[in-house]
């Protein structure tokens, strides 16, 4: 993407004020999307973002500048600005010579998005619209969105590292509104993979649309959700958000270092019931949080965070790992070249347990079954987290019965991890998500088998 000599000169400029570490991150991202709403295809959009972020580290201080100007002078002035921001004591000249690191490319987009005709992409939207509307006359509104992106990145740093990646992601989502005597209800479904247009060899958009429509229709007859603490069973693929919030963020080394995590200083301790083995794995080919190298040039890795209930390690980026004298775990990510990298999750999942999911439900006297979760949020310092349930049912006498309206669940991470008393053998990945932290969003995946938490607080309106 950039000439190696130019990279070397830029890094040298960045180190001019005495920086200990300098890095150039170059990104060239093309995206395209199309919306169908209210029966019409609209808003076909093409986007292009290209630029470089340069950081310089002196002691505990990072100077950062970014530019959309990739010319020699543009890069030099960004390097100057980053160096000035970091302001080391010493000066002088330090030569840098980067050499390419060949990380075996694990991304594979068989059909590049730019090779697919716009008409073909648009046709998917119309198919979804027709399928959803034919499901039931109560479906009064349908919207569908297609999106793809191709993100080429190059990372070079003053340790001599030079690495590149080419990340292709494809996403499709459908939303429906159903209208009934009880008002308006909604359903949503999405699929997204770190692959090309071949996504649609496996994802049937019409079936997705029918599922979405059925979800909205079901909710028309849903009862108000209960409120208060009760057992909660989360279906396969759904529970990932729970762990992402309940402990994932709290295991990010930057938050741990600031003592802003309830899991700080607890490596080696039992933090969950022995059923729980939690993994963060950026190598899972095709999953939404997958990549070959992270945004600091480190290869993606399979990192076991909790093994049989015992906390084994945190997730690390370059800076936090450097401070501890250990390697990064490949979790340094950023939204774009305009952002500093920080510790982020990739694909976070709970390994299979031994229980039959049917037994988990039948052994629950009363409670709530959550089939689909929405987004969540956590206060890592207290461990208190919430997440939304977008499709849920009552469990009565060991059986899933009536649908309930959506709402949030609230819990405390360390407490919830110790209240998982059943884990199914039906592992599935969940929906593609965007994880937000300090204003930056990155694509993440998650997965779990069916599981039961003995007590979580449901935020319904029924007392």
């Amino acid at each position, binding site marked *: 993407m950039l000439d190696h000599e130019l990279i070397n000169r830029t890094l040298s400029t960045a180190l001019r004020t005495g920086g200990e570490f300098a890095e150039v991150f170059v990104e060239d991202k093309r995206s395209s999307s199309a919306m169908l709403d209210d029966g019409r295809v*609209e808003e*076909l*959009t093409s986007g*292009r973002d290209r630029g470089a972020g340069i950081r310089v580290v002196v002691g505990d201080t*990072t100077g950062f500048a970014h530019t959309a100007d990739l010319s020699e002078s543009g890069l030099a002035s960004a390097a100057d600005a980053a160096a000035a921001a970091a302001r080391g004591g010493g000066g002088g000249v330090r030569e840098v010579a980067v050499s390419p690191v060949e990380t075996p490319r694990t991304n594979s987009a068989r059909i590049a998005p730019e090779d697919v005709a716009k008409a073909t992409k648009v046709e998917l939207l119309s198919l979804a619209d027709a399928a959803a509307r034919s499901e039931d006359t109560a479906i009064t509104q349908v919207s569908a969105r297609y999106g793809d992106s191709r993100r080429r990145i190059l990372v070079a740093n003053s340790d001599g590292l030079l690495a590149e990646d080419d990340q292709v992601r494809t996403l499709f989502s459908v939303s429906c509104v159903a209208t009934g005597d009880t008002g308006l209800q909604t359903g949503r479904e999405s699929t997204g993979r770190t692959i090309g247009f071949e996504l649609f060899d496996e994802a049937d958009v019409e079936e997705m649309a029918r599922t979405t429509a059925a979800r909205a229709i079901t909710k028309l007859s849903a009862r108000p959700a209960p409120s208060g603490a009760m057992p909660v069973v989360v279906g396969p693929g759904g529970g990932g958000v729970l762990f992402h919030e309940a402990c994932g963020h709290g295991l990010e080394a930057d938050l741990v270092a600031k003592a802003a995590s309830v899991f700080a200083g607890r490596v080696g301790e039992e933090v969950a019931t022995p059923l729980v083995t939690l993994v963060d794995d950026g190598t899972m080919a095709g999953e939404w949080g997958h990549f070959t190298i992270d945004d600091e040039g480190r290869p993606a890795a399979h990192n076991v965070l909790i093994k049989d209930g015992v906390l084994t390690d945190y997730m690390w980026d370059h800076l936090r790992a450097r401070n501890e004298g250990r390697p990064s775990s490949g979790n340094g990510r950023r939204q774009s070249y305009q952002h500093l990298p920080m510790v982020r999750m990739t694909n976070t999942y709970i390994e299979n347990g031994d229980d039959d999911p049917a037994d988990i439900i039948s052994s629950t006297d009363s409670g709530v079954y959550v089939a689909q979760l929405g987004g*969540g949020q956590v206060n890592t310092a207290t461990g208190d987290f919430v997440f939304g349930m977008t499709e849920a049912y009552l469990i009565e006498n060991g059986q899933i019965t009536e649908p309930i309206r959506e709402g949030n*669940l609230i819990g405390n991470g360390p407490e919830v991890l110790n209240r998982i008393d059943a884990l199914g053998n039906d592992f599935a990945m969940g929906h593609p998500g965007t994880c937000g932290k300090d204003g930056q969003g990155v694509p993440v995946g998650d997965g779990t088998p069916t599981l039961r938490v003995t007590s979580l*607080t449901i*935020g319904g309106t029924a*007392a």
Partner: protein
Amino acid sequence: MSDLTDLARRILGGATEGEDVEVCVGRAVETEVRVHGGEVESLTVAESHGIGVRVVVDGREGLAHAGSFDADVIDGLLVEARDNAAFSEPDDRVGFAAPDGVTVTPVDRWDDSVAGTDVDDKIALAIDLEAAVRAVDERVRGVRASIYGDTRSESAVVNTLGIDANTSATVASLSTSVLVDDIDGGTRTGGAVDAGRGPTSLDVGLVADLAVTRALQLIGAGPPSTGRPAVVLEPRFAATVLGLVAGMLSGERVVKGRSAFADRVGDEVAATGLSMADDPTDVESLSAAATDGEGLACRRVPLIEDGVLHGFLHDTRSARGLGVSSTGSALRSVRGTPSPGHRALHVASGHGDLESFIAGIDDGLLVASLQGLHSGVNAVSGDFSVGVEGVRIRDGVLAEPIREGTLAGAIPRMLLDIAEVGSDLEMQSGGSLVPSLVLGGLTLGGGG
């Protein structure tokens, strides 16, 4: 400024017969300082560019955007947008704003001190804030973040129907998130932010005091028991909740059958004490603006008057969908199409304040934090369910703090159940001018 308009006009010059074109160009220069442990953790200095081109041909719309002013990137944008338009389906609602004769209220949103202040003085603000937080109370265990940030932004929007507008604004803010020790060995948190047009108006002491006070009031908090207390919102949370209401009054939602308030104009949708408008012409608001995202004059838009639904927020497209005129409420980034939304909510003054409300409540909850707003609110049905922390009110006085609670209800019902609207109007850093509120009909859930 003029160079952005020049650039926009140059691209507009490529428009061909039979098509309408709109070009929106923006530039932002930002500084951000994050401080930890008395040291600068990171200092970001950067300039970003954005350009968006929309083309409408025979009711078909296409877009292309780029984050660069490089010639090789910009050159293809109009052609790409035109090509995209060919794949859309015609829609007679599609179209750009045309000059509507409404006078632009000038708003000075520029503070030269943002560019004029030395970066060392900006760093000092963040370092001082962190030190001030630690000095407030010995129970402060740590400061998760102490951040100073400012932005100088400029934009221009031009179209082939005669729109030619440009805007510029500066904003500076100071924020912190504090950790305090709880008696059970746990941690409670609190945060605060102050924002203004420039660094000189920011109040370090106020931000530090507020953040620590908010954390300390939760010491000893445990899960609440389930019930239906009166819910007291200080102005910052009233702004959050009324912002959700305004979101449901977007003309786009109404046109597309996604608002529980469609067909309700003229109906009593809220308690009679509530009058609410969006007023970006109020120069005191940080969200004040002279022109909207499509280049039309911003104006005062009444939404609810004495509890009766008055109207919706419109941009050009949603207005065409309902056969009315745009209310100058288009929000947009260069990356997409505009959509209507509120900038500066104004609630008419009522009676009483936080103190008098608390004194009059036997069983209540004073809200201290709301969590999960992005996942717990359905803007179509109006159902909401969020995480809550707060302090219970018993027999007219503040009692025990609570955490790990949920608050749930439905926005349409909640509006009718507003028990009190205060006279303690307070300008929020988000740009809204709102008083304290007391809400009824909500369910507090918890495992206590």
